[in-house]
């Protein structure tokens, strides 16, 4: 047995899905934390400064390459596994058990993943492309020039269709995570009699909490809400 066999066996392919999935979950936490600046007082400056740091720090830019690799691996491996798994039963059942024996979202990871992918493409076109390749307005804080990514968010989320699309994206993400986190733990062999309930519950809380915070962002922007924290702000 060698390394390539470890990652190409049926279990190995799942381990790749689990590891990249967990990496993407960690990314979600960072993304959520940075973006949470927009909820509080002095949102524009704090968020733009945080975005500037994320966009210019060399370590973070290198990690960004890893993030792209993680996304691409997770997406391609996911589709490949879906096709391989579908091919294991050429003759389909006339009647299936459906929700009687398993949860619909555990059987629909490819569909939910595709919805997230479509959302991701729009999302990158909205924010990542202009911040990397130009097209953002600029603002000045203390003599230094920053991209006004906050202004871009304001513009994008002044359109109701964008708010609805982002809410649907967060909704798909929540269902995907609800199965994904628990499934990754199981694939990596972390679950046992004692840990299974704890891991499942942590997964449920995460899957609801993080997408809910993300979903609130376009809503806050659209309605122009702000949580008044005075001088105390999240500032990255």
């Amino acid at each position, binding site marked *: 047995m060698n390394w390539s066999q470890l990652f190409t066996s*049926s*279990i190995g392919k799942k381990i790749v899905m689990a590891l990249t999935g967990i990496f993407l979950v960690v990314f979600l936490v960072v993304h959520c934390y940075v973006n949470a600046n927009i909820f509080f007082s002095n949102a524009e400056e704090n968020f733009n400064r945080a975005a500037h740091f994320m966009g210019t720090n060399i370590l973070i830019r290198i990690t960004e390459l890893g993030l792209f690799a993680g996304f691409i691996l997770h997406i391609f491996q996911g589709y490949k596994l879906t096709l391989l798994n579908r091919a294991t039963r050429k003759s389909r*059942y*006339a009647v299936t058990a459906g929700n009687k024996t398993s949860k619909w979202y555990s*059987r629909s990871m490819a569909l939910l993943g595709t919805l997230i992918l479509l959302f991701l493409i729009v999302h990158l076109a909205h924010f990542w492309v202009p911040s990397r390749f130009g097209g953002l307005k600029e603002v000045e804080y203390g003599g230094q020039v920053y991209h006004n990514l906050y202004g871009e968010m304001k513009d994008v989320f002044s359109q109701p269709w964008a708010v609805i699309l982002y809410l649907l994206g967060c909704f798909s993400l929540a269902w995907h995570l609800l199965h994904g986190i628990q499934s990754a733990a199981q694939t990596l*062999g972390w679950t046992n009699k004692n840990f299974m309930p704890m891991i499942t519950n942590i997964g449920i809380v995460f899957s609801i909490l993080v997408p809910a915070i993300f979903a609130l962002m376009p809503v806050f922007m659209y309605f122009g809400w702000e949580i008044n924290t005075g001088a105390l702000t999240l500032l990255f």
Partner: protein
Amino acid sequence: MQHYSMNLKLNVWRQKNSIDAGHFETYDVNDISSEMSFLEMIDVLNERMIAEGKSPIAFDHDCREGICGMCSMVIDGRPHGPWEGTTTCQLHMRAFKDGDVITVEPFRANAFPVVKDLMVNRGAFDRIIQAGGYVSVNTGNAVDGNSIPVEKDKADDAFAAASCIGCGACVAACKNASAMLFVSAKVSHLALLPQGEPEKRQRVKSMIAQMDKEGFGSCTNTYACEAECPKEISVLNIARLNREYLHSSLSGDFE
């Protein structure tokens, strides 16, 4: 519970051989007792068909007491029918009511080719066991079982895993036709006990390699297998199998 009789309509998968495309045929079965088993109900239908000079429905069965794992069929989308923790032979007709239409199909998976009608060839499971699901023993007198101490919780888990009858309901229930619950039960049962421990590294690698070769799918943790298993084997065995596999791959000799 009161006995009752029922008239049913059966949609049964008929397939001449492994090459035939197969199709459903509809049969009326009347005056079925609520106390018959599902297999006995098919026996009644088959008796009638034989008397009429028709080809009876082929299905596997052996012990008819829920321990051999032969009676593979999918009843209304459920391997071994609607009752939990039950094989088809232990499924009684009181699970149904008068006038029900019941769809009966074989276990469907490329790795389990249909032999005829509801009979499938589950030789793939035998080949997985042959790949490593055993303990090598030297000849000579058997050692007294009680001379080897085993912790109570490990003995319990090993026993629960060993109750797998290899019926294949897990494969039939899985949307990916994955054999992970079966393999995990066999790997767990031996890996947990001191007798199986010395060979556990090689065993898990060989059994997974054979499982992949047979064309079973990957596990996506929907846990439909656990819900359908007549012996209620826990999916925590799959986590143990994944652990054993990772451990075996990352440690020891790399050939």
